[in-house]
């Protein structure tokens, strides 16, 4: 009599068992609470001080958002773990079957290699979710202190870290399948991660295409989610990369297939993924889920800007590493792109740092062209940029609505009990669970 459970469920069960006995996963679990604890305690303390604790002038914290002040640093432990610990968990789970010879038995079952890799990825994501329990428990602690919690921004932040973990898992799976030995897979996985950091660096220095490409690296993607910005293009690019990584892993996990065919299939997957990514870059939809609307102009301004249908061209004479350019991009242009999808921004500079261009008459100029009407400004603040555009469009700036403005959610409470929870309770619970599992499997 055959088992009533479908083979895929058996596979999930097997992968769960393999994950639970994996030491690398327990190392990941035990490392998370102290990492989160350090970041959370430090963030809450600073937040409390800025909010008026210990005699600091109250009111400074009005502009503080828990997302930026507490959650982004507290969840940064996930980013560290995703780069330095999660790859080893994934490599162990994917390469283990080949190392032990189990792959030769399992592949005779006939289940598609993609389903096998999908089972591993699902279990790894579940394992990652367990590893994210300490940062998620920090939310409960924050609530107990009386802190404000805005669910959409926290959901976005969590989704960003899940996507980042998905990228790591897909990359590690592909490398494990491509290489014969897990140590080689680990080196290559970390190599690709370092490669994305180099891309970020080149993007910051060179600007242009590199800057655009750097916007799709995991680090850049997580940074956006940390600010509560949910962009359709970056999300889809991440999903395409995850799918491509897992498919390449499936191609190279198959047995009995000539290497040449696998190479062609991998190249095909690479080409499809590249086309998919290219197509995704044309999608402009994005959602600002932050309570502070930190990624958007005030609603009145957005309504006013939406009425301008003439294409706007902005020519910025600032070097990539000039702080004014960074200010302009983050405070104004990134917000403007969300409201005016047809906005064209051209950066013009002869050098990367701009130090020796300062003497040039045109350096620092920002030219605005709205349907042939041109004006120049050197202001890089959001207010200055909006004022210039309104003036060029010939529309009156909207009246500021104080009720709409985010007043912040200050909290002058010390991180009471957080040390006990993150340095004592969580490690204790994880150690006890580890011992129980070990006893069960021995």
């Amino acid at each position, binding site marked *: *009599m055959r088992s009533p459970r479908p083979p895929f469920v*058996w596979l999930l069960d097997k992968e769960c068992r393999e994950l639970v006995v994996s030491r690398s996963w327990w190392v990941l679990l035990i490392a998370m609470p102290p990492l989160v604890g350090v970041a959370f305690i430090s963030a809450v303390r600073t937040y409390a001080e800025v909010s008026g604790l210990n005699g600091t002038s109250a009111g400074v914290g009005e502009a503080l958002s828990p997302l930026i002040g507490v959650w982004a640093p507290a969840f940064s432990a996930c980013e560290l773990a995703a780069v330095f610990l999660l790859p080893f968990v994934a490599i162990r789970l994917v390469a283990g079957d080949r190392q*032990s*010879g189990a792959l*030769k*038995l399992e592949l005779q*079952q*006939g289940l598609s290699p993609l389903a096998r890799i999908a089972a591993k990825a699902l279990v790894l994501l579940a394992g990652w979710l367990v590893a994210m329990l300490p940062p998620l428990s920090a939310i409960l602690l924050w609530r107990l202190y009386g802190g404000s919690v805005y669910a959409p921004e926290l959901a976005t932040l969590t989704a960003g870290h899940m996507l980042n973990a998905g990228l790591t898992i897909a990359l590690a799976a592909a490398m494990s399948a491509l290489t014969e030995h897990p140590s080689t897979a680990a080196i290559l996985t970390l190599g690709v991660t370092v490669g994305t950091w180099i891309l970020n660096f080149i993007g910051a220095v060179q600007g242009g295409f590199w800057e655009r490409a750097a916007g799709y690296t995991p680090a850049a993607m997580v940074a956006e989610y940390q600010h509560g910005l949910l962009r359709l293009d970056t999300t889809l690019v991440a999903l395409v990369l995850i799918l491509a990584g897992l498919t390449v892993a499936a191609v190279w996990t198959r047995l*009995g297939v000539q290497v040449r065919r696998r190479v062609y299939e991998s190249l095909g997957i690479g080409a499809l993924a590249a086309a998919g990514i290219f197509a995704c870059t044309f999608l402009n939809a994005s959602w600002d889920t932050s309570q502070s609307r930190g990624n958007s102009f005030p609603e009145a301004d957005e309504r006013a800007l939406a009425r301008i249908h003439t294409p706007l061209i902005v020519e910025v004479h600032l070097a990539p590493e000039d702080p004014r350019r960074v200010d302009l991009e983050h405070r104004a242009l990134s917000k403007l792109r969300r409201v005016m999808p047809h906005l064209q921004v051209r950066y013009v500079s002869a050098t990367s740092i701009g130090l020796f261009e300062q003497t040039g008459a045109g350096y620092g100029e920002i030219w605005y062209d709205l349907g042939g009407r041109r004006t120049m400004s050197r202001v890089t603040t959001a207010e200055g940029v909006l004022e210039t555009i309104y003036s060029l469009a010939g529309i009156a700036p909207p009246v500021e609505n104080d009720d709409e403005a985010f007043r912040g959610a200050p909290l002058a409470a010390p991180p009471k009990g957080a040390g006990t929870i993150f340095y004592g309770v969580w490690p204790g619970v994880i150690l006890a669970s580890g011992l129980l599992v070990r006893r069960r499997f021995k």
Partner: protein
Amino acid sequence: MLFEVHGLCKRFGEIRALEDVSFHVRAGEVLGLIGPNGAGKSTLFECLAGVLPCDSGTLRAQGQPVGTGGRRSLLFYVPDGIAPWPAQPVGWALDFTIGFLGGRAALREQVIDQLDLRALLPQPIGTLSKGQRKRALLGIGLLTSQPALLIDEPFEGLDLRQARDIASALRSHAGRGRTLFLSIHQIADAARFCDRFVLLSSGRVCGEGTVPELAALAAARGAAQAGPDLEEVFLALT
């Protein structure tokens, strides 16, 4: 006939591991693949099971070519020297074989008793000795439901008593119609246990048949010294 193999070739770079290998497998027989170390026995099994891609050659069942995908319902291959799912207990591995690999649940207890696995059921596979691991692997193979079972070195790592018990267990499964194709490098073991033989040397088939058939073949090739002993026949033909 269960299946026949024709013109199988496999190269690793410049090395010809298998060269025009052809033979046939009858339903319900115990067929021994005999050859010295490095003859290409494991490579042949891996090519047949679709674990390794072969360069050319076909496998036919009922006159029809069977692709790699189709072989999954025809044969199951148990490799030598592997320790699958090392952290999982033997009992779980047998259940996984039944559940995931579509094994026969009705045979579970019988296989456990035949291979003396009961005491090993709670032990993780990675902690087993070589012989214990071999028995666990044989248990996995015997539980599968394909008509043909290919086992690479079934007696490797077993002591004399265990080898005899295992041989008896394998024979009982063959008696119920299961076709066993066993790769054995110890010719004396093979001679005691198998019905027919495929002799493999340096990737080539040197002969196929029962001991008398092989002896006749050796005689026909002018090897006057070949007697009814498989070792002598093997030496004469290779």
